[in-house]
């Protein structure tokens, strides 16, 4: 069961503003999904290693060679707000 308090905590971690009746709805819906998901708690998995990758790969890194990056104007072209060749955002320090 995910209560009101937990919904608000998770929403804060996920940077999603959640208000009013949505809090109750998430509490109900997430609890219901977690009830189904909790069934894997019944399995004995003590000596089972977690999957980190499904297909064996080695040497996945490409050569570390300098190459041109996206031109600045291209990278900024879709930004909602730009100033002085950078992305413009409010101060992170503001409360």
């Amino acid at each position: 069961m995910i209560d009101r308090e937990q919904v608000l905590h998770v929403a804060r971690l996920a940077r999603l503003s959640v208000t009013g009746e949505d809090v109750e709805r998430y509490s109900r819906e997430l609890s219901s999904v977690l009830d189904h998901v909790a069934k894997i708690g019944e399995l004995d998995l003590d000596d089972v290693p977690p999957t980190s990758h499904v297909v064996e790969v080695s040497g996945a890194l490409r050569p570390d060679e300098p190459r041109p990056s996206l031109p600045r104007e291209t990278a900024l072209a879709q930004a909602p707000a730009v100033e002085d060749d950078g992305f413009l955002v409010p101060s992170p320090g503001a409360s």
Partner: protein
Amino acid sequence: MSADVLDRTAVELTRAVTAGELQPSEIWSAYRGRAAADDLNAFTWVAADHPSPPPPGAPLAGVPVAVKDLFCTRDVPSQAGSRILEGYRPPFTATVVERLHDAGAPLLGKTNQDEFAMGSSNENSAFGPVLNPWERARVPGGSSGGSAAAVAAGRAPWAIGTDTGGSIRQPAALCGIVGLKPTYGAVSRYGMIAFASSLDQAGPLTRDVADAALLFSRMTGPKDPCDATSIGFPEPVELPTATDLRGVRLGVPEELSGPGITPGVLAAFQASLDTARDLGAEIREIRLPHAPHALAAYYIVAPAEASSNLARFDGVRYGLRVDGEDSLTELYERTRAAGFGDEVKRRIMLGTYALSSGYYDAYYGRAQRVRTKIAEDFRAAFEAVDLIVTPTAPSVAFELGAKSHDPWEMYLNDYCTVPMSLAGIPAISLPNGRSEGLPTSLQVAGPAFSENRILQAAHALEGALGFDGSEARA
């Protein structure tokens, strides 16, 4: 449109071009007209201009391809079914779209989908649901619903989509076409907007098995330096020619061929097993003991990875932005609350919870262990059989709105497809009959990189099953 074009499969079209019977421009005009006039809401964008002719001898011969909106395409809207990416035109193109273009398949249009590929009905698109061409009151499946509907309805000769837990196979099943989810790593994920990175894989949605083989052969290729998880394919992908299944051992897992499957789908499945026997296959009952836990593990792993991947949508660099009163945090929170739809938010919340302090081991850690058990089950099964067959989707296409009230009921659509996704192995879906007038479907899965064998077996079955999809193109 000339029946000459519409009646032919994509492979037949490439042959007609090579033989000089058809010009690529005729194929383009015919399909571009049908895509532009599409009334199923399958497309979110259709190309306007004639593409430059394919290079002489190009293997895909100018037969255009519809591309799920999850793939980035340079200067063309790539919105992943989401308001948060409304109007986004990427400065680069996904490797797989680039490869198809170079092989002679120009971009016909972008197809509608569930937002960020999260859904099994295409009802989660910010741009409205796609209608099933067999019966418009029904869903086409999802998340690659636009690609599936476009091919089934003859609005595109073929299409590509992505599959995380069934998002190619299930819509292919509900629309009566063929869909292949390749081995994880066979196709580059570069330029595919990420949902769950350890599961996402691109593949073809096509009218028949030979088309799937030809399109897949050009989607895969050498390892892509832009995708560290790409592997490529260890052998050439062949056009399948098999007409029998002599010497092929087909495994039927009892966990995925009974519980939760509707009677009509089950009857078609049993009939397909009889067909396989007639073709010379040996049918063996097998066990995949952990398969019933796959959906639970998936609904931890996929939302967890999604919660991390979707953190990038923050209203700063592209897409939607909703300003707050004064703080950056408020800008993030308001942008994301306004830009994401219900299902995406639900999964972000679920994944964030599963990864949060104190819960990681109980959820994500355990789910990754279940995943290991599921992969071991498959490995053990492939000691005794060559391929595994199951129904693809547990039911035929359902009515719009029928399952949107209960998330878990919607998730059950992927009951038979999620185990293969968690194990990273390839699987194809092909139509095998009809129930309530709507297509039913069969899934054929094999070990990693066994696509050639899967395609051969599917080709033999397809020939004997004789499914006719022409009604949906009428």
